[in-house]
């Protein structure tokens, strides 16, 4: 009986490994047609995504994913670190709990809500107010001007990145806060004793001490942002061209999958979509594994 129970629980826990291997295997076998037709390097570097001529390349999708992810990190990291500093050093004790919980609540809102809100509320604000404003103030600057070229439609990389950044703020913020909190009081007090101001303690003691954890949190958010689908599907426009401006519609891997998977009529089309899914899976798995590695190392360091 005991043996049976241990066996059943064992099988249940190995389902996780089974699913990871299963997903990898199924995605590879389903995309084998596209892998044979387009190869690996060619698929990853080709910009054509043409269901009519049956030529598929992933570069526009990969580029879209990278651009939105990196932009959203640029927006989110300073805010998230600021929130973490506020929650650990500035806020009075009775506010720490409620405000921290409220920020974490942002992570609980389903991504489709972000997407819809982005389409109906944020996108008009972006196209009517913020984007024309950005265009105006950058009009005189030679190189920056190019980034803001084109008609501000609100359905573009910039809007998608803003939504993504709101979604990932809570991950970075809460992990950073937890890492900041692990800085031993003695170390901080020694710095205060030397006459450091509060900001100097944060800048020179707390942040260097907890950088492993903070970095892990950032990489985790990166992994989340790469795989986010619904929040960007509404406001990115699914456009398979190399974007030249932040006001261009684009496509990420996830958006392409969401929009085209159920409609793919030809084998090679479907196979190429599976190929994209494979690329996404491998990419996000590596990023998440790196994040986990950092967080584990941070954990080991602090527990010493």
């Amino acid at each position, binding site marked *: *009986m005991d043996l049976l*129970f*241990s066996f*059943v*629980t*064992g099988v*249940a*826990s190995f389902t*996780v*490994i089974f699913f990871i291997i*299963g*997903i990898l295997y*199924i*995605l590879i076998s389903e995309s084998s047609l596209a892998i044979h037709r387009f190869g690996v390097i060619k698929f990853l570097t080709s910009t054509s995504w043409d269901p009519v001529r049956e030529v598929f390349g992933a570069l526009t999708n990969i580029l879209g994913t990278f651009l939105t992810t990196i932009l959203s990190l640029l927006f989110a990291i300073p805010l998230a670190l600021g*929130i973490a*500093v*506020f929650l650990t*050093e*500035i*806020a009075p004790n009775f506010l720490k709990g409620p*405000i921290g919980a*409220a*920020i974490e*609540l*942002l992570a*609980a809102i*389903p*991504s*489709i*809500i*972000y997407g*819809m*809100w982005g*389409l*109906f*509320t944020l996108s008009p604000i972006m196209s009517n107010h913020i984007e024309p404003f950005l265009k105006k103030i950058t009009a005189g600057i030679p190189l920056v001007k190019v980034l803001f070229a084109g008609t501000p439609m609100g359905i573009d990389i910039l809007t998608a990145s803003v939504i993504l950044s*709101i979604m990932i703020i809570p991950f970075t*913020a809460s992990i950073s806060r937890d890492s900041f909190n692990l800085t031993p009081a003695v170390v901080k007090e020694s710095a205060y004793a030397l006459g450091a*101001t*509060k*900001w*100097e303690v944060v*800048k020179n003691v707390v942040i260097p001490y907890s950088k492993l954890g903070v970095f892990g949190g950032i990489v985790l958010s990166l*992994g989340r942002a*790469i795989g986010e*689908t*619904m929040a960007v599907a*509404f406001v990115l426009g699914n456009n398979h061209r190399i974007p030249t401006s932040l006001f261009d519609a684009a496509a990420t891997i*996830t958006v392409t*999958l969401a929009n085209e*998977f*159920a409609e793919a009529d030809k084998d090679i089309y479907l196979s190429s*979509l*599976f190929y994209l*899914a494979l690329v*996404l899976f491998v990419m*996000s798995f590596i990023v*998440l*594994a790196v994040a*986990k590695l950092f967080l584990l190392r941070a954990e080991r360091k602090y527990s010493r």
Partner: protein
Amino acid sequence: MTRESIRKAEGIVALTLSTLAAFVGLFWLVFILGDVLVHGIKALTPDLFLQDPVPVGVKGGGLRNAFIGQLLITLFATLMGVPVGVLGGTFLAEYAHGKRIARMVSILSDIMVSVPSIVIGTFIYAILVKPLGHFSGWAGAVALAIIMIPVVLRTTEDMLSLVPWTLREAAFALGAPYYKVITQVVYRGAATGILTGILLSIARVAGETAPLLFTSFNNSFFSTNMNGPIASLTVSIFQYAMGPYDNWHAQAWAASFTITVFVLLLTIAGRLIIKWRYK
């Protein structure tokens, strides 16, 4: 200006910016929730829950099919995902406690928690939709179950680890075999924690859209047949919001409102239970 006053000024500026950052975060939360609330309540009518969709151009109609579909998919996903997750977590915290394999599985689960859910959708499409030739509610439920398993597994593992070893040793001393110790002592000690994990995992999958897009697909008619395409709230929201009609948009807002309230209530309840039980 002296060095001291520069340092002080720098500190004040930096700390003010941090405070501002916190308020920006809160601002987004209030903005999004407020928007969903305002738009959602306006469109919230009894018809939304009691009527099925009507053809475009006809007034009225609701999303009864999507509410029922969502309930069915989530229910079956929970029935499949929770037992596997709880048992898997038990293995890691008990039989494989401290072993290398337990660490590996728990790290892999942490990664699986964040793996893009749309990839899981494509996986299920390949194994459950393509071979059978049609979309089905079962496929959607299995996709959600796969997302649930690592979440439940990790919380169960953590919660079981919190039960003190002396408790187990006391039960062993009475001559109980390990499975009895687990089911009658350890599970009881960790029941609240495990339950909270289950609540949070339901909250997690209830708002998922991407894995349902090409597994359970959508259905504009009322259906409880898990063997065919079945409507879900989230996919309906996607379809309605992207559509061109104003009353579609209104219904999408109302559906968003319902699902947001449901998910947030579950999340807050879960958090409060953890706080009350483990502090």
